[in-house]
């Protein structure tokens, strides 16, 4: 979602709203989608539908190019691209999933939604058909699509969250190095505040950026294994999660966010990214797309931009090298033509991934494609992923949608001051148990 085509957030939100306006309409049109059903076109070629969300350049034109390249080598196959805007894609997929008929190849973020589709018997197990390709990949990139030792999607993008910071503002506040522990971090915030600098930009309206704080704190305290255990037991009331909330509360008590952050969106002209990109805040906790959006929504801060991992928490189980993130992958519907799998294998060769890296600003998924990476910001994220000791998928994707949303919602309430850390843990557990 966030990982692929980040610069379209504002547009997505508008379009999303437009589609929201006609909730029913979206569901209705979904039924009217084309019904190729892996059939043949007029010249006898097998048609493979490829549903993607690359609505922005440069990937918008690279995707059709890749399809053409495949068709040139496989004259009996036609790849039919269906490109949808992010939110529209989600509502359409909801409708399609309940009708039990998915596109041949479709975009997935892995985690809870993919798991539900798998449980409904709609997704092809790709472990064998794409095994040789998977073996060439960065392990963290495949994680979101693996369940019970089987892989259900081919990753093409991967990313992670960390702190993006403004080196000039850090210097101005007399901070020599990025913090490595949570106590250090709180000190950094205090120093920035006393230097008259807004320490953190946050998009309170959208809730998910706030969730990153709670998630990372939980990961640092409970560890990736602890997170998994809690998810399996559907119980987040353990001390670790309450502690995560308390630490977040410590931070909120310092009033570190920009004015009006509760109403701020992420990528609008006065949202989180713009605040950061115009040099009005010193840090934001965001994924690898942050530099692009900062430059798009604001002016961008160029060489002043730095990156550091989320600090460790004293006494926590999680390592500072555990990474929180997610990416994008392509799943194949059960019973899709074999050409669909062939295409994915073609799409993710090292050669092809190098094109995605160099032209579409993606972080390499195939190890051999790393050399194509030139952007220093993306290299920082890629390095962090390469060295990662543990990987946790975005919680709003890893867990069933209701649980993910409840975490977003409860964290937002904690930041707004209306829920206590215990209440957050209880609310999340309550929703998890109802699933």
């Amino acid at each position, binding site marked *: 979602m966030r990982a692929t085509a980040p610069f379209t957030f504002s547009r997505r939100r*508008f379009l999303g709203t437009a589609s929201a306006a006609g909730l029913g309409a979206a569901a209705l049109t979904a039924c009217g989608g084309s019904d190729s059903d892996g059939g043949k076109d007029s010249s006898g070629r097998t048609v493979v539908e490829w549903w993607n969300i690359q609505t922005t350049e440069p990937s918008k034109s690279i995707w059709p190019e890749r399809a053409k390249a495949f068709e040139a080598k496989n004259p009996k196959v036609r790849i039919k691209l269906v490109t949808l805007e992010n939110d529209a894609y989600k509502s359409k997929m909801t409708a399609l999933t309940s009708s*039990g008929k998915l596109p041949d190849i479709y975009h997935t973020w892995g985690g809870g939604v993919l798991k539900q589709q798998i449980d409904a018997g709609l997704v092809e197990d790709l472990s064998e058909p794409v095994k040789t390709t998977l073996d060439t990949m960065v392990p963290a990139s495949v994680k979101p699509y693996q369940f019970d030792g089987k892989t259900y999607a081919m990753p093409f993008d991967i990313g992670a969250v960390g702190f993006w910071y403004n080196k000039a503002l850090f210097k101005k506040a007399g901070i020599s190095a990025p913090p490595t522990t949570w106590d250090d971090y709180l000190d950094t915030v205090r120093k920035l505040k006393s230097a008259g600098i807004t320490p953190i930009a946050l998009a309170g*309206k959208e809730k998910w950026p706030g969730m990153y704080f709670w998630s990372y704190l939980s990961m640092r305290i409970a560890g990736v294994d602890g997170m998994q255990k809690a998810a399996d037991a559907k119980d987040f009331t353990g001390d670790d999660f309450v502690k995560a909330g308390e630490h977040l509360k410590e931070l909120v008590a310092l009033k570190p966010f920009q*004015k*009006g*952050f*509760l109403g701020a969106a992420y990528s609008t*002209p006065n949202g989180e990214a713009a605040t950061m990109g115009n040099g009005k805040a010193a840090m934001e906790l965001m994924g690898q797309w942050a530099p692009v959006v900062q430059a798009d929504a604001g002016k961008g801060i160029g060489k002043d931009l730095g990156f550091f991992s989320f600090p460790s928490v004293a006494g926590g189980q999680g390592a500072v090298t555990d990474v929180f993130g997610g990416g994008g992958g392509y799943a194949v519907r059960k019973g899709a033509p074999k050409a669909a799998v062939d295409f994915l294998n073609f799409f993710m060769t090292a050669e092809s991934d190098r094109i995605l890296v160099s032209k579409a600003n993606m972080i390499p998924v195939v190890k051999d494609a790393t050399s194509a990476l030139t952007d220093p910001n993306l290299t920082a994220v890629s390095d962090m992923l390469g060295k990662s000791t543990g990987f946790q998928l975005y919680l709003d994707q890893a867990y069933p949608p*209701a649980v993910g949303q409840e975490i977003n919602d409860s964290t937002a309430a904690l930041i707004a001051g209306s829920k206590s850390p215990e209440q957050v843990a209880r609310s999340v557990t309550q929703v998890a148990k109802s699933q």
Partner: protein
Amino acid sequence: MTSTFVEDARDATVEAPGGAPGNRRPLVRRVTDWLTAVSFTLPALILFGALVLAPIMYALYVSLFNWGGFGSPTDYTGLDNYSRLIKDPVFLGDLWRGLLLVGFSVLIQLPFALAMAVLLNQKLRGRAVYRMLFFAPYVLSEVITGVLFSMIFAPDDGLADKVLGAIGLDGLGGLWFADQSTVMPTLFLVMTWKYFGFHMMLYLAGLQGIPAELHEAARIDGANAWERFRYITLPLLGPTVRISAFLSVIGAIQLFDLVWVTSAGGPDHASETMAITLFQYGFKRYQIGYASALSIALFLISLVFAIAYQRFVLRRDTEGALTNMRATR
């Protein structure tokens, strides 16, 4: 003689109540009448059934399940969703905020629209321009309105704060959509901006239908401007006011787009409406069962209001047209 008289008398008593001729029509005729009626209404009925009734029934059915939208609903939970609903602080808040919006709309927005309509019904230089200007916001889509105002009301950097700052009223500016305590007034401000022009147009149309002679006669009788408004304009505008209040209330109950774009229901649910909550549960959390229960609640609230309003308030206006056939007999 006697016998004939008696016969006549009997005939007279039979004929006297004067039966309606329709009841005497031959059976075949009545059946074909029915068939004609049915064949003309059937297409409309089928469409209405398939597109309105069936989805409502389906929502009602789904609302009895704990269902995530995948496969078919199996986890039957009875009225569980509903008992959760009436304990859900967000839903209860939605009801309160809905009531607030309805109250504000009817008590502030409509009188304001009426005042503007009366003003612009006078012979005024450039009144066509004013009418157009005030009506223009209604033509904008809600999403565009929302985007526009979220920029205008951006804390510090937005137009509103800049203007207030420039005229030395910095104190009045603030967080607008970004604070729990100011988000609802700000939202209402935008709603008024957007919708009062529409109601103003309705009233203007109504005002055109009031004969000038009435005002003239009243003026001759010595009625002042207020009396003429109170005793002529207002009563004759009654049907228009009643319809516009109805539209305003239904609009407030179902408010979605504007809120979604400006505040997304936040901060911390402070501006959430029923439709927003519905969307959150249905399309963000995929708790379709619970969302359906909510939609049924929203439907019932609208339905009860609509029926009660039709029955008690609009009765005079619709007598004979929508109510029973007493008036036509």
